[in-house]
């Protein structure tokens, strides 16, 4: 082989680590297996027409969910690798460079490719059904958002085997992440994949805000909106106001790297603090973007499984909006130690602590809802109950971190690691899992096994405390984050060992969750009623899974907890939402389209081109994007009507006519 081709190949493909060869092999095996299954069962056409080209929000939601679980697996493997490396002092399991790459991709994946798609999964699956709509405002755009996210995730994951992963931390601060100190393609991969998925997220934010503001069923006023949907309003507003800052930060850093500009270099007048500010103007709201929907889930779950209406509805709505506003004004607490001065630090310290108030309001409202309720401890309820102590501890340590002078001690230590995992896992991930168990019957028509769910919960929850509690202590003992190993004799060994055991327990919990998904697909209890939990909001008035047009007849809403009210009225003999009463009309639906998928491929091409500075690819990708946009602009036949007979047939098959 000529030397330059060999040189190229060894740089193009990551070589030298046994773990990477393992990854190569498993990627190839998994791909071959998928191709084989699709071909063997002749599922290609089905895959394309039913999934890849779909604009149905429910299917898009399911695809988000699958992607989020897959990425959680990848991010979880990273976590396990890191914890294994830190289990004992002076370990040689991972090298320093490899460790840097792993914590970077772990953090990036968990925030942007696990938490985000997980909340978007629930947005898509739940919101239109909860507000009595047949679709989101812009279904085609919704599909584009999904495919941008999907291909961005692919791009970031590819970096592991092709070219090398980013290694400057998930926050990617320059000048460390600048061209001078970080040559390889890894950092470019980071910038491009986040940029691409960020555009998709921004579109999702716009889409769902417009959907909720403009497409509610008649009578469903804002103050009758289910609390999950309210939390989506808060999250969407935050997405809309914060993601542009991420777009700007990433774009400027990319320009620095590929065009040799001087925004953030130490030379020619650049100013790295500019990046840190822009990044956290997005980064802090981002944690509320992912936690607000979790709060929404808890509100639904607590009300349903306590058989009571939520306590303090108005204060719940108010607290969501207060959190939305305040969380936009606290970003500096991420760099108290970087020399902003006492005035600035005090302002941001106080603003940060202020968030504890509305959050406390919510926690108390959940507790008051449960008080004297007829509580059923189901899987969604377990995760909700598990969340409360987590958030109490995580919130308390958060307030400690917000004490600016004290932060000089904890900053960038394991105390911080323990804190943010406590709120991110204990808040977002618990909330999303609760939501997944809760709405699973609505998505698939069967529920997940309660027995397996309980095992999974206890493994995960106990493992969680065993993993992260020692890390508070480690932080106070001086162990800093992002170190790949530590010497003997500091007293850190036992704590790290315990933490690693906890991480393995969480891994078992995750495996049990996935096992449950597989098991229940075959043996799970079928939901024939559509309202398996005896719940309160409109999505449960539909069959499980809902027909593709959602509502044959759009419901009229005159109270909060509309579906609960309808059920009560039905019991009293007054029937509402009776299909015979209202005439069924043809339903206007958007057509499927393969273009969103292809658009994702084009953006992937652009990203890949940038990663290696192959500008021909970049230009090609952009041209293709432009063509696709033009084609869309000239498209007029993009929707159809479902005829009345078809609707009647479908409804009759569900036994509703």
């Amino acid at each position, binding site marked *: 082989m000529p030397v330059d081709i060999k040189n190229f190949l060894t740089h193009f493909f990551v070589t030298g680590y046994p773990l990477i060869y393992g990854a190569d092999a498993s990627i190839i095996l998994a791909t071959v297996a998928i191709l084989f299954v699709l071909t063997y069962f002749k599922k290609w056409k089905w895959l394309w027409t039913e999934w890849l080209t779909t604009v149905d929000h429910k299917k898009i939601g399911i695809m988000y969910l699958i992607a989020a679980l897959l990425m959680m697996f990848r991010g979880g493997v990273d976590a396990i690798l890191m914890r294994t490396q830190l289990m004992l002092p002076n370990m040689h399991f991972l090298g320093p460079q490899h460790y840097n790459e792993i914590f970077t991709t772990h953090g990036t994946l968990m925030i942007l490719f696990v938490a985000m798609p997980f909340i978007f999964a629930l947005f898509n699956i739940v919101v239109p059904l909860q507000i009595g709509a047949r*679709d989101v*405002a*812009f*279904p085609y755009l919704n599909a584009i958002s999904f495919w941008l996210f999907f291909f961005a995730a692919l791009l970031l994951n590819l970096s592991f085997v092709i070219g090398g992963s980013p290694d400057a931390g998930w926050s990617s601060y320059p000048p460390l992440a600048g061209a001078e100190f970080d040559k390889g393609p890894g950092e470019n991969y980071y910038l491009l994949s986040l940029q691409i998925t960020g555009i998709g997220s*921004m579109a999702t934010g*716009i*889409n769902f*805000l*417009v959907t909720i*503001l*403009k*497409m509610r069923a008649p009578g469903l006023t804002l103050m009758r909106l289910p609390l999950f949907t309210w939390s989506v309003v808060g999250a969407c507003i935050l997405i*809309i*106001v914060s*993601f*542009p*800052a991420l*777009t*700007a*930060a990433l*774009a*400027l850093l990319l*320009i*620095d790297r590929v*065009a*040799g*500009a*001087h*925004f953030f*270099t130490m*030379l*020619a*007048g*650049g*100013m790295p603090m*500019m990046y840190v500010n*822009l990044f956290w*103007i997005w980064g802090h709201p981002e944690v509320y973007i992912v936690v607000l929907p979790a709060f929404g889930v808890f509100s639904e779950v607590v009300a349903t499984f306590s058989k009571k209406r939520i306590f303090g509805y108005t204060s719940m709505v108010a607290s969501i909006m207060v959190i939305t506003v305040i969380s936009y004004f606290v970003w500096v607490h991420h760099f108290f130690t970087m020399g902003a001065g006492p005035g600035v630090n005090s302002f941001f310290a106080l603003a940060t602590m202020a968030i504890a108030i509305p959050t406390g309001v919510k926690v108390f409202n959940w507790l008051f809802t449960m008080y004297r309720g007829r509580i059923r401890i189901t899987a969604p309820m377990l995760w909700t109950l598990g969340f409360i102590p987590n958030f109490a501890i995580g919130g308390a340590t958060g307030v400690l971190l917000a004490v600016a002078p004290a932060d000089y001690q904890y900053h960038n230590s394991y105390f911080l690691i323990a804190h943010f995992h406590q709120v991110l896992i204990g808040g977002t991930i618990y909330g999303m899992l609760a939501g997944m168990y809760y709405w699973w019957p609505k998505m698939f028509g069967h529920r997940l096994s309660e027995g397996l769910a309980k095992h999974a919960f206890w493994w995960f929850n106990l493992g969680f405390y065993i993993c992260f509690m020692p890390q508070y202590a480690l932080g106070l003992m001086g162990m800093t984050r992002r170190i790949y190993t530590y010497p003997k004799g500091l007293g850190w060994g036992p704590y790290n060992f315990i933490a690693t055991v906890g991480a393995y327990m969480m891994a078992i919990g995750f495996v049990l969750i996935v096992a449950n998904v597989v098991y229940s697909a075959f043996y799970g209890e079928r939901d024939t009623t559509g309202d398996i939990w005896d719940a309160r909001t409109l999505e449960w008035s539909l069959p499980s899974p809902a027909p593709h047009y959602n509502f044959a007849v759009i419901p009229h809403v005159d109270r909060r907890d509309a579906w609960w009210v309808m059920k009560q009225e039905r019991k009293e003999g007054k029937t509402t939402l009776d299909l015979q009463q209202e005439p069924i009309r043809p339903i*206007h*639906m*958007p057509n499927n389209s393969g273009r969103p998928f292809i658009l994702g491929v084009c953006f992937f091409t652009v990203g890949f081109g940038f990663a290696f500075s192959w500008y021909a690819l970049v230009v090609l990708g952009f041209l293709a994007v*432009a063509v696709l946009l*033009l084609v869309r*602009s*000239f*498209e*007029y*036949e*993009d*929707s159809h009507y479902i005829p009345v007979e078809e609707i009647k047939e479908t409804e009759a098959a569900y036994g509703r006519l």
Partner: protein
Amino acid sequence: MATTEESLHIPSHSRSKPLEYSTEDGALRIFGFWVFLVTDMLLFSCFFATYAVLYRHISTGPTPSAIFDVRGYTAETLILLTSSFTSGIATYEMRRQNKSGLITWTIITLLLGLSFIGLEVSEFWSDVVSGATMQTSAFLSAFFTLVGTHGCHVSFGIIWITSVLIQVIRRGITPVTSRKVFITSLYWHFLDVVWVFLFTVVYMIGGMY
């Protein structure tokens, strides 16, 4: 959900509304576009903030006042403001169902937009040949990025408006085409507003240094 049978969706009470708002779909998309403009405005705000922080960081390069060409940017300003005005007239003609008026004023708008881009490109070009590139200083990085992003938006707008113009020529003024004209004109006015800030912050305030 654009449709050929848009008329089915015109509720009787809304016939008095402008055509572009007459369908549910049209109103939805226009509202969505307003929200999009919020995100775009925030993106520009970030670049403005960057410029405001960096415009004195000239390193060994030229100062803002040394490279700004007063006649050039004044001409650009006048041209862009005028094009916003002509785009407004185009919308007015659309509301009056005057197809040829709409087409004429749109073409004038496009020509003005093109000449704006031409001037901007020549301004950038003369900076670059005089050695003032993005790589020279943080100030120039910020300048080219901020002004260039606006320029990219204008160029994109020209292509977009052209495609809408073709649709108007082919299909006339319908609920769908009028919506598209209206949205592109919102976009165009928005770029005008951004330019007013560019003019003040970049060229006037920056030019004093």
